[in-house]
């Protein structure tokens, strides 16, 4: 009974988070085309619904009813497995993201944390681990399609994700040194009390370099412009998902956007104070409405995440694609030394000025 109830509450929480993520993915597919259009003096989709707001639904219906083609030379098992392998790690990372204040509420006689599915003490490590598995989906998808474009896209993706995951991992070490915890909830709580406590500018050592390295590396890790070599449409048709159609293609597509949301959530939680407002406490809390303060916190978190998502669109509208050797040189010769130097300096600062 107790276990069944706990399971039901957890499943409800998971369903709610998945719903929000899928809804955000839907919004993103439209928002990306709209923002990109506006930045390029176009209008973006305008036909479906008023100002094209129903375009994601039309796209979803189209992909759902499209014929599912498996190429004759493809490895059927891996071809089927790859989209799932890409989507699941992208979705599973949201389990440890704190969307709001870490409070506990009493529900059916149980302690429930409403804004985080599971506050495990290795949260950030868990996200990094599953992000690495997501690369397998791309590589296997590229290999099993039995197509030269897919294979080249998969190979590029393998090299790129491995190079830049290193930088992501090293960039967040500074934050972990300062906060003394791997749990995203504890890291966010350590940044409470105003924007001067956010790790991006917090004393004793501002993580601004780590922040820049993290943002650039996360753009590369999600295969977005200007690091979209795995799916460079002018060179590789569509890269690793050239041979995919219908729902399998949609899985890769959703995985890419879910990954964008995930790295944005992590960036917001690690560097920009997560759910904390840029001023001490919350306005609703100061007005005596402590029961409603969580609304303000959640809105701040959403605002930060959407800022990062906008940054992704903004970069895409601005920058051309890097050449492959430039990508590798930039990752290993520029980003990696900066991240390592940041760790050394942060460690020295954290030793002499413990928080």
């Amino acid at each position, binding site marked *: 009974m107790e276990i069944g109830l706990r399971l039901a509450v957890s499943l409800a929480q998971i369903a709610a988070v998945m719903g929000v993520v899928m809804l955000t993915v839907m919004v993103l597919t439209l928002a990306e085309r709209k*923002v990109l259009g*506006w930045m*390029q003096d176009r209008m973006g989709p305008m036909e479906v619904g008023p100002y094209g707001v129903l375009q994601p639904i039309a796209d979803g219906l189209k992909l759902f009813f499209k014929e599912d083609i498996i190429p004759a030379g493809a490895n059927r098992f891996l071809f089927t497995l790859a989209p799932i392998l890409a989507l699941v790690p992208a979705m599973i990372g949201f389990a440890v993201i704190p969307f709001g204040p870490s409070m506990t509420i009493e529900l059916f006689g149980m302690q429930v944390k409403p804004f985080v599915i599971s506050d495990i003490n290795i949260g950030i490590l868990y996200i990094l681990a599953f992000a690495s598995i997501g690369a397998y989906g791309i590589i296997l998808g590229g290999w099993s399609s039995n197509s030269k474009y897919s294979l080249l896209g998969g190979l590029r993706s393998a090299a790129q994700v491995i190079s830049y995951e290193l930088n992501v991992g090293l960039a967040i070490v500074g934050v972990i040194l300062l906060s003394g915890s791997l749990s995203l909830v504890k890291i966010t709580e350590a940044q409470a009390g105003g924007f001067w406590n956010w790790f991006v500018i917090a004393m004793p050592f501002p993580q601004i370099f780590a922040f820049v390295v993290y943002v650039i590396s996360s753009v590369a890790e999600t295969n977005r412009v200007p690091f979209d070599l795995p799916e460079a449409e002018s060179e590789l048709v569509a890269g690793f998902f050239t041979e995919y159609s219908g729902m399998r293609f949609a899985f890769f597509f959703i995985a890419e956007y879910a990954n964008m949301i995930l790295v944005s959530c992590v960036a917001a939680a690690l560097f920009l104070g997560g759910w904390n407002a840029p001023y001490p406490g919350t306005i609703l809390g100061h007005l005596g409405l402590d029961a409603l303060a969580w609304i303000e916190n959640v809105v701040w978190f959403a605002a930060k995440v959407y800022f990062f998502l906008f940054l992704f669109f903004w*970069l895409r509208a601005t920058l051309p694609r*890097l050449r492959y050797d430039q990508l590798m*040189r930039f990752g290993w010769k520029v980003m990696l030394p900066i991240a390592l130097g940041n760790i050394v300096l942060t460690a020295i600062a954290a030793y002499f000025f413990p928080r």
Partner: protein
Amino acid sequence: MNAAVTTDTKRKPFSEWLKTLTFYELLVGMKATLTHLLNYKPITLQYPHEKRLLPDNYRGMLSLLRYDDGTEKCVGCDLCEAACPSRVIRVVSGEVPGEPTKRYSKEYYMDMTRCLFCGLCVDACPVDALAMTREFEWAVYDKRQLHLNKQQLLAIGDRAFPVREKRLELQHPNVAFFNVAFKHLPQKEN
């Protein structure tokens, strides 16, 4: 972005290093895109719903014209066929029955799949029987629908040019004309 690419031995000035370090060029580009986002003035025309104003000399679909009494202008002289660089036009000329000095086009075909809308046929026509309309929406599912005969071309002309010219000999006393039946001369013996 690529700070490591320095093949030249000259030392860069400090301001260049500062620009590289602060992603100055990237920020300039991002400012440009943001400016366009904030001053959002789309140049898009929502085509099927709103259409742009065509210029006066727009060269669209070809058509055959009639005089105001409903007779065809075309005299079957084949000059348009000779002028056409893409060999779009095929004219089968013939005498008007009962009027041996007067000719007309018995059949007139245009293969619009090949037409490049240069307007040379319109220039070549001595009696202004050909004209270019402002129609351009001629997408069809079967390209054989673009092989037009005389009736179709006349119909295009009818709907595109509702105001018609008078017959040449009635336009002005000083206008030169030809290919007109001379009723006062004796008929050719057939």
